[in-house]
């Protein structure tokens, strides 16, 4: 018996660093991911799909998002069980209980409201969020008084953070992983399908507690996004195969039951990358150029770039051109201002290269002195200026650096 585990679709999500065009592409990609996972479910013979929370970015999505979601869901050929997460709780404003959603949603879409549901011979327990600030462990509540029953296979669908072993949980809503694992050990539960963490993660020791991760990445700090999980619960009485992922070997005392096989299937098309580069030489700039040009699928790549170093006027001009060009091609390019510390230095050779004479040369030298002034002052004061890392700067020095870059550009224009 197979089903597909996914979560954190966050339909209707926007990203402030995306241009309007890129945002439109990103939005479209999220709906496309739903269709794609529908195809994955079909290809892998999944009986149904569970979505472990955060179907929507918020309950206050536009009606177009609702309409397009229902349109995409219609293309999923198996039943889809939706769980409300912290982004879209089942409160009075819930999208999934709204008149519009109920009217548009296809027949095979079911909203999990905490009542156990039987589907394809599996009992699905659910722990939906009913408000944005729950005051208890919803998973524990859904599994209250749960005991193993013969021939009953249970899957818990829940959303949120789990408490690590031994760690104190300041938030009462954090799930008690140990309690869940006991239920799994006892056979009261066969699998826990979690949502909230965007990176695909196997949690705990059992191999039966999974975060599916977001099918389309949403941010730079996600480690393994872009997947859905095909879960094979096996057939009753059938032992698990050796290739099963997540099978826990040290569970000798458990009653005989099939192993669970969880398979990652990538569906996401966007890439969120974070890069930090040190730029000091022409070779460094060459490397940046190569890196940028080698990026695949640029229009669906969001790059966050941190650059540090000290460049000549010509090098800085080159970097500016490179970044400008990359900004035109990429889905998003954020030059990571917080950690960028790219200093323009105009030394004598640099100024000579401009081929200036007379007063223009004098002006350029003056600007170079101003650009270097904070560093010079820092050096004179015994500071670490000139070393890697954040250099001392002043608005005037920045203006002078920029002016030198501009001078370089204007001079280079012939």
């Amino acid at each position: 018996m197979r089903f597909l585990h996914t979560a954190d679709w966050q339909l209707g999500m926007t990203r402030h660093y995306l241009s309007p065009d890129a945002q439109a592409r990103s939005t479209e990609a999220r709906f496309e991911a739903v269709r794609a996972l529908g195809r994955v479910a079909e290809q892998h013979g999944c009986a149904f799909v569970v979505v472990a929370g955060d179907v929507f970015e918020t309950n206050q999505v536009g009606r177009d998002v609702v309409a397009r979601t229902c349109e995409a869901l219609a293309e999923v050929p198996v039943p889809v069980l939706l769980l409300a997460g912290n982004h879209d709780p089942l409160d009075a404003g819930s999208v999934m209980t709204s008149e519009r959603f109920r009217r548009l949603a296809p027949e095979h879409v079911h909203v999990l409201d905490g009542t156990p549901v039987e589907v394809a011979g599996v009992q699905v327990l659910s722990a939906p969020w009913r408000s944005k600030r729950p005051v208890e462990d919803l998973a524990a509540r859904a599994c209250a008084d749960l005991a193993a029953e013969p021939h009953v296979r249970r899957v818990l669908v829940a959303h949120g953070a789990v408490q690590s072993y031994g760690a104190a949980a300041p938030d009462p809503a954090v799930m008690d992983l140990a309690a869940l694992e006991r239920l799994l050990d006892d056979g009261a539960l066969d699998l826990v399908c979690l949502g909230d963490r965007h990176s695909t993660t196997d949690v705990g020791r059992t191999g039966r507690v999974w975060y599916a991760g977001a099918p389309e990445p949403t941010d730079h700090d996600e480690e393994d996004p872009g997947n859905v999980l095909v879960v094979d619960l096996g057939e009753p009485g059938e032992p698990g195969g050796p290739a099963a992922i997540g099978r826990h070997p040290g569970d000798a005392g458990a009653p005989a039951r099939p192993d669970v096989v969880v398979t990652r299937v990538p569906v996401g098309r966007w890439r969120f990358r974070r890069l930090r580069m040190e730029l000091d030489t022409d070779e460094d700039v060459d490397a940046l150029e190569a890196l940028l040009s080698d990026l695949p699928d640029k229009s669906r790549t969001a790059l966050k770039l941190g650059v540090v170093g000290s460049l000549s006027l010509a090098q800085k001009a080159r970097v500016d051109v490179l970044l400008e060009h990359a900004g035109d091609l990429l889905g998003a390019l954020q030059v990571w201002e917080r950690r960028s510390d790219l200093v323009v230095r105009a030394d004598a050779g640099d100024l000579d290269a401009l081929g200036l004479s007379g007063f223009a040369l004098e002006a350029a030298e003056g600007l170079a002195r101003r650009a270097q002034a904070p560093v010079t002052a820092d050096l004179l004061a015994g500071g670490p200026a000139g070393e890697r890392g954040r250099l001392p700067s002043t608005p005037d020095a920045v203006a002078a650096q920029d002016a030198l870059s501009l001078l370089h550009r204007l001079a280079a224009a012939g």
Partner: protein
Amino acid sequence: MRILRLRLQSFRGVVDHEVVPSPSGVTVLVGENEVGKTSVVDALDLLLDEYDDSRKRLVRQTQPVGQDVATVVEAEIRAGRHRFTYRKQWHRQPSTRLVVHEPAPEQLAGREAHARVLEVLAEEVDLPLWRALRLQQGVGLEQAELDARSSLAQALDATVAESVGGEREETLVARAEAEHLRYSTPTGAVRVEGRQLLADVEAAQARVVALEREVAEVDRVVDRLDRAREDATAERSAGARDAADLRAAQERLLALRLVRRTAEVAAADLASATAQSATAQQGLAERSALRRRVQELVEAAQERATALVVAEGALAGAQERLETAGAAAEAAAVGAGRRRTERDAVVRAAGERAEEVAVERLRGVLAAHDQAVVVVAAAEADLAVRHVDEAALADVEELHRAWVEARGRAGASAPVLVLRGAGVVVTTADGERELGPDPEEVRLSGGTWFEVGGLRVEARPTGEQERAESSARRAADALAGRCAALGVPDLAGAAAAAHARRTAVAALDAAQGDLRRAAAGEDLGAARRRVARWDAARPTPPPGGGSAGPGDTGGPDDAGTLDLRQAESEAALSRAAAEETRTAARLEAAAAALEDHRRRVAEARADVEAAAARADLLAADLASARSGSGDDALGQVAETALALREAAQERLATAEAAVRDAGVEDAEADLAVLRDRVDDGRKRLRGLEDEVGALAAVLDDRGGAGTVEQLAQARADHDRLSRELAARERRASAARTLHEALQEARARAHAAYVQPLRAEVERLAAPVFGADVRVEVGPDLRVVSRTLDGVTVPYDQLSTGAREQLALLGRLACAVLVSGGAGVPVLVDDALGWSDERRLDGMARALSLAGASCQVLVLTCVPERYRKVTGATTVRLRA
């Protein structure tokens, strides 16, 4: 750059001509107008600038008119290390040929050659300076645009160890300024795009805030809706419990209703008895009040009667006061009448005395008048008898003159005899007489005769003598007749009579004047009547008192006495009249007081009657009431009613105690509380349901609006715009910083290299204006002013000649400074037309000085102007 040789063929009017200027120093190219000396300049430009196949108008115009021939320009030029021959042919079989001689032989043709020349020139020569250093006809007064020419800059740099930029640097300045102006206006304000961006950022921020508020509002609505739904559920179950309690309480209360009914009846009885007792008490009170009222009215009537008596007494007193006042008024009136009579008598006596005085005066006037009338009559009578007036006297005088004349004429015509003979007796018509010792003349008029010694001598008059004598006699007769008529003897008599008449006329005039004065302006008739009236009114005056007045009533009264008496009587009369007025007023007041008292008495009398009537009326009422039921009977009724009421009260107390014992009130109170609770619960539920409905409607309305997405989008917009703004501001800052840095550096550099140019201009200007000439050179390298003999004159205000000289000197100074590698020839096209002989000499020396270090080509049709340029090569151009 040096022009070593220049050849023109079929170039406008020039058929074929070659010019070989001196490679350094001054070359004067002499040509008449139309010969084509400007063609030399144009040909050089054409050679360097235009392709051989150019169809430009300025190229086409070089072909000689009407000739389909090729135009050829060929030049040998030295430019830095390069020396080359460059030839172009236009119009027919166009071609370009370049032969480089130095530093390495090279041959090129066509566009390649053109490009190579430009390359060499760009490398070696400052072409803009080449154009700037020309002094062309017509623009001779303009100074060269020397601003930062690179070769000049380098030359100056070598001099002052300062650097200026060249064309490339100027281009950078222009670009930096253009970049700066993309962001700022020339006045430093942010351009509209920047302001718009800032406004967009603010608008986006505002939108973010608004959407955040909206999202938060929806969140609040959701929270409230959840709460309201929970509350409604709780309210419904509480309401069901309350309804059950209410039903139980209602059933318990029904059993207690009978007990309470008894109490209600007792309460009704008590109410009835209370009402009856109240009615009886009221009757009693009313009777007592009636009695009190009657007593009050009787006492009031007695008070009124007493008041009437007092008023009547006051009336009698007023009557007496009126009579007393009447008597006083009468006495005062009599006294006043007497004083008035006395005053009238005094006034009359004064009047009569005045009339008497007036009449006496008139009497005198009349007497004087009568006297004057008599005198006048006498004068008139005297005048009437004196006839000889002035006319009559004139008549007599005329007649007398006529007679004397006639007699003269008669005497003159008679002969005269002279008788001599003392003692001789002669007889004449007048008798005998003896002649005297002296001869005596005798006029022999008619009839004259004498006798002497018997001799009678008779004169017989002549006819003429007779006529004269006759005329004399007629005149004598006329005179005598007139005198007789006038009653006078002769002329003297007439004159006396006329004098007497004049005297009489004057006497009459005097008398008439006296008569007029005697009237003294009086109407004599009226005066006479007034006197007659006075006399008629008076009896005959008493004897001895002729002058006494008729108004004399005892003793003489003069005017002063009369005035005194009049004043005294007036004062007495005034006092009496005042007394009379006072007493009359008192009388009137007394009469009014009397009237007032009469009225009061009448009113008091009416009051007495009214009070008596009221007392009577009420007494009748009291009597009537007592006839119904007596005062005692009323008292008994009231006592009975009170007793009945107390009995009813006791019964009610008993019944209420029974109700209390049964707990009816508690049960009712419980029921009421339960009812209220159920009602309140229903109301709360309705309120909650309303709230749920309303909030759900709000959510329904808001849901699907995609507010969070809009908010995210708005934040994205804000981020993007903020980044754009920051980037723009950073670019603007960079552009401004660069622009300012370049401008400052350029200004400093310019200031520094002005000095050597100025020194050179002054060196060249010394021969022209004198050794002490000083010039000021501006940052644009133009001469700003010239100082001569301590007098500084701005360039624009210099004479035309001086300006032209300075314009050329400035160019020469540049050429001298740049005479090294990149130096260019100075081209002077027929300048110095405004210079006088002395200045021309000076300019010639300046040209000589400049020619020592650079190539100068002077084109002129007046070679004399440059005669004194030393070392000059003169080349004559021909067509």
